[in-house]
């Protein structure tokens, strides 16, 4: 067991012991290190001003990197990694990094408060060659808010810096080796006594270890990407006594394609799941590009998105429509349930104390199954759904043989529209059938009015999404354009 967080801050080694485990990386940087270049704009993962970059060995002599929101990441995330902040980018002789210089040259900073976050976000993309075209760079920075510039110069700067030379392999290998040496491979255990009591942090290294520790501490809070849990600390000011980090467990971070099915470990981040899910259906890829933004997707996990039980999470409706199954584990016991049965009621899931989500298994689509998922929100990017819909409809011999219509934002849990499904059964696939389903949908849901949408809008839009699905999958004739994003992008 290790009792200290070891990492590189830039190129300097740091060892943190006896820090509150829920100290955020941002607070650590600004208050403890007095590195004030990294800014706080919201302390809830939504503005990107606090973006920093983490690097770690990829196990093959190279490095894996990701930009994250330091405001909601806890310091333990640093263990065994390199933390790069805006202060690390200038060359020793004071020359600005090409990304920085490009922003200066294009007048990409006005008040400058968002700028360090953009610099780090673009830097991570430049380093990883994550974007090359204009729409890609826009998606890449959709989690960074700028209130001054209107973004044009920043987008231009991101593209302009692309051609600048990247670090050579020798440099990368040396860093990877240094980080390997830093890594201890042991379970991290932090304990800290603060004004509100003792806090403990465990970061088990295997599923068995996790199962044992969680059984011993069933009151502990599991932490995956902390994109929810981080806010419990920064916004709800909750005191969390015991935390168990599930992100250091290779089994949980694994994606397995068995041919017919895709098994996604609970700890797989949205970024890591993107490719495999896009392959299941392009709509899933599109959904994920609109799921929060890069920094959140780099941290947030599929397991967290399910386990948090939210009625407005994006993945559960999509996965329910796909008839996914959830694998749970408690101690040595494993069980499997249909994902839709996991969500019992608002704030109540079918998960016992000490039990955790291990993985979710998603059957692949059959050729005669039509699938789509739609996310409706006030803003396309980085917004929580007002309505989330996913439809999977199988047609046999010209008739609808099965239908799974799953919705988020329509009820207290992600839920199937049973009445609408029934209305579809046996009908010919077409607008008429879906009109009937739309009518039946009113029996399925009595949605709420809140700041995201009124009940009236939710129901009408949900009904219209059924119509959209029918139009998009119209068997013959000219396809009808139904998605503004596809028009807007030429």
């Amino acid at each position, binding site marked *: 067991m290790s009792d200290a967080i070891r990492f590189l801050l830039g190129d300097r080694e740091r060892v943190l012991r006896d820090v509150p485990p829920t100290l955020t990386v941002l607070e650590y940087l600004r208050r403890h290190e007095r590195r004030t270049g990294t800014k706080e704009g*919201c302390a809830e993962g939504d503005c990107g001003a606090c973006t920093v970059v983490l690097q770690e060995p990829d196990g093959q002599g190279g490095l894996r990197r990701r930009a994250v929101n330091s405001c909601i990441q806890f310091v333990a995330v640093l263990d065994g990694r390199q933390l790069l902040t805006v202060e690390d980018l200038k060359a020793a002789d004071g020359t600005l990094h090409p990304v920085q210089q490009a922003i200066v040259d294009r007048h990409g900073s006005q008040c400058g408060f968002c*700028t360090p976050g953009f610099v780090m976000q673009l830097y991570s993309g430049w380093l990883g060659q994550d974007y090359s075209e204009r729409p890609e760079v826009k998606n890449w920075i959709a989690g960074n808010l700028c209130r*001054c510039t209107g973004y044009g110069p920043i987008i231009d700067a991101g593209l302009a810096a692309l051609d600048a030379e990247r670090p050579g392999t020798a440099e990368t290998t040396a860093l990877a080796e240094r980080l390997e040496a830093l890594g201890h491979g042991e379970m991290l255990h932090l304990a800290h006594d603060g004004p509100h009591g003792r806090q403990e942090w465990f970061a088990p290294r295997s599923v068995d270890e996790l199962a044992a520790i969680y059984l011993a501490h069933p009151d502990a809070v599991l932490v995956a990407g902390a994109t929810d849990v981080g806010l419990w600390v920064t916004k709800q000011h909750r005191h969390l006594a015991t935390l168990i980090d599930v992100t250091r467990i290779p089994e949980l971070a694994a994606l397995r394609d068995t041919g017919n099915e895709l098994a996604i470990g609970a700890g797989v981040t949205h970024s890591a799941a993107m490719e495999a899910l896009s392959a299941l259906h392009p709509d899933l890829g599109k959904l994920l590009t609109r799921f929060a933004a890069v920094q959140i997707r780099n941290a947030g996990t599929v397991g967290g998105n399910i386990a948090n039980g939210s009625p407005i999470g994006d993945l559960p409706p999509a996965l329910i429509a796909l008839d996914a199954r959830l694998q749970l584990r408690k101690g040595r016991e494993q069980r499997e349930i249909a994902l839709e049965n996991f969500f019992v009621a608002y704030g109540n899931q079918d998960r016992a104390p000490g039990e955790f989500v291990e993985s979710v298994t998603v059957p692949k689509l059959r050729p005669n199954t039509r699938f789509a998922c739609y996310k*409706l929100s006030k803003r396309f990017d980085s917004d929580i759904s007002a309505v989330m819909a996913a439809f999977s409809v199988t047609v046999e011999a010209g008739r609808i043989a099965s239908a799974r219509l799953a919705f988020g934002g329509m009820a207290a849990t992600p839920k199937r529209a049973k009445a609408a499904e029934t209305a579809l059964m046996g009908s010919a696939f077409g607008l008429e059938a879906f009109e009937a389903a739309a009518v039946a949908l009113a029996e399925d849901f009595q949605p709420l009015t809140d700041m995201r949408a009124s009940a009236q809008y939710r129901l009408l839009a949900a009904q219209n999404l059924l119509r959209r699905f029918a139009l998009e999958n119209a068997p013959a004739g000219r396809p009808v354009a139904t998605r503004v994003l596809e028009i807007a992008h030429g």
Partner: protein
Amino acid sequence: MDETVIQDRGISATFSRVPHSEPPHDGAIKGGVARSVKHDSAPRHVAGEAIYTDDIPELPGTLHLHLAMSAHAHAAILSMDLDAVRQAAGVVRVLTLDDIPGKNDYSPFFGDDPIFPEGLVQYVGQCLFAVAAESREAAFQAALLAKIEYAPLPAVLTVDEALAADLDLLPRHEMRLGDAAAAIDAAPHRLANTLHMGGQDHFYLEGQIAYAIPGEGDDMFVYSSTQHPSEVQHNVAKALGIADHSVTVEVRRMGGGFGGKESQPALMANVAALAARLTGRPAKLRLDRDDDMVMTGKRHDFRIDYAVGFDGDGRILGAEFDQAARCGYSADLSGGITDRAMFHADNAYDLQAARVTSRRMKTHTVSNTAFRGFGGPQGLLATERMMDEIAFGLGLDPFDVRRANYYPAEGGKVTPYHMEVTDSVILEMMDELAESSDYRARRRAIRAFNATSPILKKGIGVTPLKFGISFTTTHLNQAGALVHVYKDGSVHLNHGGTEMGQGLFIKVAQVVAEEFQIDLDRVKITATTTAKVPNTSATAASSGTDLNGMAAKNAAGAIKQRLIAFAAAKYSVPEEQVVFLPNRVRVGNEEIAFPDLVQEAYLNQVSLSAAGFYATPGIHYDRETASGRPFFYFAYGAAISEVVIDTLTGENRLVRADILHDVGRSLNPAIDLGQIEGGFIQGLGWLTTEELWWDKSGRLRTHAPSTYKIPTANDRPDDLRIELWDKGYNKVDSIYRSKAVGEPPLMLAISAFSALTDAVAAAGGYRVFPHLDAPATPERILMAVEDVKTRVRALES
């Protein structure tokens, strides 16, 4: 930025053409006026080295403050038991009403913004008391222990509720030109309608913050993220019961302001200074984002009723606007804001006969405040809606209807407040833009698209803009600057304006460099402080450069004049023969390096420091008669936007926007373009995704970026073409004939709102005119589409 194409990848070119930006000729100074000089802080911004208030190293012993907030919109406070708060770990002092030695008020004027309530709360989030503790977390946790007993009172939350209750906060105001009612009655065509428009949170990326450091005696030094240091200074003095001279307020830069740091920072500064005074320790108050959004004022939401009479060409014969604004619980700057909404009811149009009325409604919500445009955007939006509706009714192109109504270039026509418009260039600009954007053909193409697209509908909208420049409170149009020339010829520049990202500092430095004919890097830009330049106005009303640029020019000019007099005397040449050349001065036939002349002047006991002052000449407004010349000049702009909507969900996208903007002779084209693009996108947010939503108990539920959605990079259209108008020239003697640019471009986004309305109309086959309020969220668009369809069905049956 001399290049025309600034982007070479992607699917459609974004370009910005920049006139007046000649490359400097050989030997010219580096960075004078009319150059696209980079923002002075840019290299520090990108390196994380630019220091904002929270980045200043904290002194040992610094306390951290938290403000406790009211849970009720309107309630009497029966009791406040704070014992447990005082006993809590880490708490050093709890601050309440009884601790205020001076006046319990942080208002800009009316004395109606209590720092701590006197028995009554009037909005959810109103500050109740403050906790000073060893850490922010300790202060927060302690505040939770308060036991507060409220007796809730009925709360009035919206404009409509306030109108129903006749709850005016400030006196009504009216402007009249001719007899509008008679003109409308006599007109061949008439229409009347109502538009509701929402407010807007500033969402400056840096939240409100103040850091107070007690000095000896009464002295108090306050770092404040404020657009208005003088007001913060005065408020701190007022609350502490000391003279203004004991308080110094400093701000090097803000992480955005947009009007939200004009009057609001006084609360943070007052509480921080109070804590510093009471404890003798430095004290910092930085609002958490959510608290900031709940506690601080926003753009006013409005209801505007309009009625208009017009002829068959859409020529307006008379118009009436009844404006009603939600001011919130206190006056703050609402008077000036609602006035400006009235001043912009005409936008760029000669209404011939007009009546504009304004009601300033009191509600039990946060006190609304300045926001870029200061009421102007709201006034304009209703007028632009009216123009679209006139065109729709007549089956004419909205472009042509607008064109039939512009103030003529030759002058002779007056506004509803009886100011002659002598500088109207809007017709020429709009025609140029229609041409360059291929407006007519695109409008036809959109109609053709809509005819074959059952679900997605496109729309196009045009917006001309005329925006009055000057504070409408005449005396505020003054500024001061302080310039020192040191013995080595380097220059220290200070003025009353504040830097919030708009590039004011660099523009004013360019002016000073130009005046002395020295390279820009010889001019040191310094933090705004009340100790150097007193009694300043807020950096607001787009006037920062106009006022401070002139003041700095005057200060530099005074020193320059002394140098000229000195050189003329010393070298026995007439003053005309002392000429400032780049980095040197020609005296008679001799050339002397600027630093050498300065050194000589110093040795000869010439003062090398000067204060400069400027007051805008010739402006006035008489409230009694609702007439005058409140504006020094007008800035103009033109925009055309194209959108697409989904009639099944209300999802929508701005596809393309073309902008032509008049900045006169640009002082710094790159900075001006940045203001235009940034303002446009900010306006787009106001009118589309940014929705403030209060629940029935008066709680703002969109108080964080998770629920309040400002535009992201993806909301900016790939095809955004912005040009500075190459014929731009200020007819009045402004600083180097430039025009203000801070606020006007925000209103260009109204073109997108018009385009959305057009697209909704398409959903009903252009048979009925849509009811679409702002912001046009997907929900409002879908509901407008449904309404249009219902009305068309009714027509058909």
